[in-house]
């Protein structure tokens, strides 16, 4: 079914459509949450909350304001970041290495069953340091252009093109 139709049905509280969307995005959303909280149990808990919230707030999604995937991504990142600020989380160890997502992909054994696994692993292992940082900030941490420019100490005007170059490499490898 077309994505637009599926989203429409989901907004009309169709459980089957909800399940289809979950199957499309659960890995991505879990991956992003896990990259932020770095703990599997906590990440699973947040994943549940995110999709419960998505169901309850389905009405508030509007295609004119962005992609559905981006909408989910925002809910997930906000929930995960909220968690890292909570008291219960402060006790758990937090390391702030920016290439955590690279590490996750390189050590991901369950990837082998999926297509493009070798390509993806190769892609992240070859990834230039500045690409690792920019991808981590923009896609996993949800930084704005301005925040990324400050964190990387590069001019605001160069963020867009630099990020595009990094993503172009990924697309070449994935052939999308």
């Amino acid at each position, binding site marked *: 079914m077309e994505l637009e139709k599926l989203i429409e049905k989901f907004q009309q509280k169709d459980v089957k459509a909800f*399940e289809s969307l979950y199957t499309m995005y659960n890995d991505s959303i879990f991956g992003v949450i896990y990259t932020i909280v770095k703990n599997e149990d906590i990440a699973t808990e947040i994943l549940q909350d995110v999709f419960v919230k998505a*169901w309850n707030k389905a009405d508030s999604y509007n295609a004119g304001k962005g992609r559905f995937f981006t909408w989910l991504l925002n809910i997930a990142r906000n929930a995960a970041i909220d968690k890292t600020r909570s008291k219960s989380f402060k006790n758990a160890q937090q390391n702030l290495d920016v290439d955590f997502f690279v590490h996750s992909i390189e050590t991901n054994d369950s990837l082998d069953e999926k297509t493009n696994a070798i390509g993806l692993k190769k892609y992240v292992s070859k990834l230039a340091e500045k690409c690792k940082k920019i991808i981590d900030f923009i896609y996993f941490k949800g930084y704005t252009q301005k925040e990324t420019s400050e964190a990387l100490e590069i001019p605001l005007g160069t963020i867009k093109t630099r990020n595009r170059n990094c993503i172009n490499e990924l697309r070449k490898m994935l052939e999308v």
Partner: protein
Amino acid sequence: MNSKEYIASGILELYVAGALSEKENEEVYAMMQKYPEVMQEVLSIEAAIVQLTAATSATDTTGIFDVIQTELNLSDDTSRETTIVPIQKPRSIFRYTGWAAAVILGISLIYSVLKTSDLQSELEVVQSEKEALKEQIYKANNDLTAATKLLSVLRTKDIISVPLGGQAVSPTSYAKVYWDKKANQVYLDLQGLPDPPAGKVYQVWSLTLNPLTPTSLGVIEGFSSDKDKVFDVTNTNESEAFGITLEPAGGSESPTLEQLYTLGVVASNP
């Protein structure tokens, strides 16, 4: 801006990430509706990001959907049994007062629902006003940070500044090169160059003079869409001069000297 330049600017990658302002999101959406190739590009970028992010998950969370369904009290089973409660015939006088009470209750329920939805829409208006204000502040901050960043780069002690003057093909053009030799970084201020015609790009060259040897430092992508016209490229060469030429999209192996827009020599070291 045409759709090709729009795509090359990198804005769509940020759109998928959710890194744009609400206004920018609306602009991108309008472009997607207008140009199928922009729509296609967004879908491709999204597919790539979905795969990249999914690859960071080593846990199978398929089963979590059942937990979510239980938490939300959703069930696939639509054929719920209806229980039938026998109704006794009420006595006539009580029947009317009962109806009256029901009508009054109904009206007051409707009233309170209407009132609540009124309040809710008011709340939404206030919230979207708040968002708009935040957006304005954010935008102003953005501009300020860009300017501050630029200034701090230019003020670095070890920076070598090289003015590039306009050449025969475009005498009024000018540009400036700020070369951070230690960081092997070159910042280009290209405000004095006209927008390149469709299908052409500017290419930046490092030159050594004796003998004259050009080395490409790269092409400037997304020139027209860049607001401050400041770009950075890496330069590990012992440059003696810098030049900028107009080349076909993708750049050239060696500079097209008839299309040399600006040129400037590095002042010899003291």
